[in-house]
């Protein structure tokens, strides 16, 4: 799950980024409105955290412009302005949710999960393919009730594959959703992580769930 944070206050952006990373999200930062809009337009984020008072371009404008360009990425507004009128304006500009500062970090995580859940048909926090289970709340992965320990990158990779189960997932898709802007496409980092993940998921079990589709990508099938 890749999230964009548009926030001009360096320290706020920092702790959100750190907190989200610990929860296995992939995070990009934009320190002003223009860069935020550019990143949101050029990458397929799963969610955008948007501050309202921003240098160069304010949050409301970014929100409106994204919606005009048919970019339907869920937007969660974060702002110190919490009057009912401000919230109404924010939601009307195209935001999906609104959280006023200062906020409880747990609530931010819950709202992010809720917004992401809304994007898929089975709206719960446990993803399941055959006997493989992934709990998005406590990030536990079990196969046949046996717990499997994963690194955060492996978790993010598996979560993405499970969210797109029974579909071919290309390397580009993986790089866009599981890695952030710093991703270097000339390395074989995806292959390395994928190999590790396959070893942990499939090695001890009869049935293989992750398959390689030569020339196109990977598929997770039950």
């Amino acid at each position: 799950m890749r999230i964009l944070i548009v926030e001009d206050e360096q320290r706020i952006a920092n702790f959100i980024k750190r907190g989200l990373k610990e929860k296995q999200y992939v995070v990009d930062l934009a320190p002003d409105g223009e860069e935020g809009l550019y990143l949101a337009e050029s990458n397929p984020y799963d969610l955008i955290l948007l501050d309202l008072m921003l240098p160069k371009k304010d949050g409301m404008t970014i929100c409106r412009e994204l919606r005009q360009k048919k970019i339907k990425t869920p937007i969660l507004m974060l702002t110190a302005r919490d009057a009912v009128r401000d919230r109404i304006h924010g939601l009307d500009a195209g935001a999906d949710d609104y959280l006023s500062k200062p906020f409880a970090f747990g609530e931010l995580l819950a709202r992010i999960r809720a917004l992401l859940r809304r994007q898929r048909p089975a709206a719960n926090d446990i993803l399941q393919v055959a006997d493989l289970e992934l709990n998005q709340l406590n990030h536990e992965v079990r196969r046949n009730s046996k717990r499997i320990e994963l690194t955060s990158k492996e978790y993010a990779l598996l979560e993405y594959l499970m969210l797109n189960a029974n579909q071919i997932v290309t390397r580009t898709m993986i790089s866009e959703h599981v890695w952030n802007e710093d991703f270097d496409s000339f390395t074989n980092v995806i292959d390395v992580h994928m190999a590790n993940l396959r070893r942990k998921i499939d090695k001890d079990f009869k049935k293989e769930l992750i398959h390689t589709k030569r020339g196109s990508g990977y598929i997770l099938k039950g």
Partner: protein
Amino acid sequence: MKRLKLFRDFIVGKILLFFSRLLRRKSPRPSSVPHSLILEISLLYTIILGIILVVFSAVLYMMLSFTLFRELDFELKLKAQEISQSIQSYVKIYGQTEDIFNTAVEKTIVQEASSLKKWWIFGAERRWLKLRTQMDIEKDYINFLTSRELSVAQSKNLLEEPELGPYFLRAARTAYGNRPNFYDLKFKDRKIRVINYPFVSPLIELPSSKQNSETLAGIIDASESFRVGKEKLNNQRYILQVGVSPQPISLLLQNWLHYIVVSIPVVLVLASFAGGVLALRILQPVEEITNTARNISEQDLSARVQSQHYYKEMNKLTDAFNDMIARLEKSFKHIGEFSSHVAHELKTPLTIIKGEIEVSLMEERREEEYRRVMNIALEEVDRMLRTIDDLLLLARLDYQPGSFHFGEFDFVGFMREVYSQSKVLARKRKIQVKAQWPAERLLVKGDQLHLRRLFFNLIDNAIKFTPSGGEIEIQVTGDKGAVRCAVRDTGVGIAAENLEKIFERFFYANSFPGGSMGLGLSMAKAIAKIHQGDIKVESALNRGSTFTVTLPMEKIEWREKIGK
């Protein structure tokens, strides 16, 4: 001229005082139920109109009555004159003898107009008679008597009412000298206005008076309507009395009075109605303002009174009201923005502290991690305290200018200190600071603590907006009783449309890193103002800005010190 003006002012003042008292009398203690203004206006209007009408009618009545009576007197005098002329002309025609005089008197006073119909009268006699008839004295009471109150001749109507005789005699007694006088004769319920007209006999001499007395008596006997006193007509002075009833005049005046008495109340009733309608019309905008004012709340100040009225004064009122609402709306908006900025400014550090702590508590951390979070929290708490201090200082600058400690000091020395400290600040960003000041001392009266804050705010900003390797220049000059200090930077500059706004509290511009300028510049300006100074800014985008602080110089005391 000046006196006249003073007098006019005095009169106008008195009138206003009178009406204000009138108003006050009608509106009792403020604790009681308030009156309707419309009722009061129409009542006052009616009362004023009533007073004017009564005074006006009274004056008119008096003038009319005076004129009519004067006319009556004039007419009486004219008649008396004509009668006396008629007698004299008769005597002139027929000879100056006593007989002829008596005949003339008789003919003039007693003769009836019908005599003209008698065909045998002709020639000079007829001409005379014609003239006499034209006098129109048939209805008047005429009494001709000697100065010794002996009646020589009386007109027919007087003869018919012998009881009037003594009254005329009494009137005759008021005569004096050679001038005619008037007398009001009251008889029962009748009034007669009488003129006593002195008449001098036209006879030149009276030697034959005794001789002619027989014949005269004969004539008197012959004519029943003519009586001659027993006394001889040896006195040349007579009194001609002409009396007229003033009844037509009295009737006219009485009718007039009736009309007035009846018409004034009718006019007043109509006027009070009209006054009410007028007041209602005039107060229409007041009603509108009331309705608008009711609709205005702190949530919505957009309501305005429709401001095109027939009355100029009401337009002024509605304009003033609308202006007031506009100002309120502006200041409400300003307060709203200000408080939202304050909230933002205080909530940002709180968000950081809360977020850092919560994230660090999500899992077990190493000690350094906790230490890092603690440090951040401490810094953010300091930042909040700074913001609160700034806000309090600004409030003090606004409302308690007395709480500053003003003292005289040398501005050049002061800036030298500021300069050396700012060099340290700028070194971290690799920015060079230059300074320039005059050789002599410049004396300034002010609060050094706050002035230091002013200049550090300016220099902080300059450092903040100047890229590394840039340059900041401080230039102090003193002339024309003012000390000027320019802080020039080679930073990002300020867009022309924002030049004035940057001094607003928490002015927020998209072009600034960090968005808000915070309170620094607005505080600097407030401090300058407290010192009777000012801050001006010039700027060119991407080339830099110059902030110039002007402070008044303490000149006189400086000279005194030189003297010492």
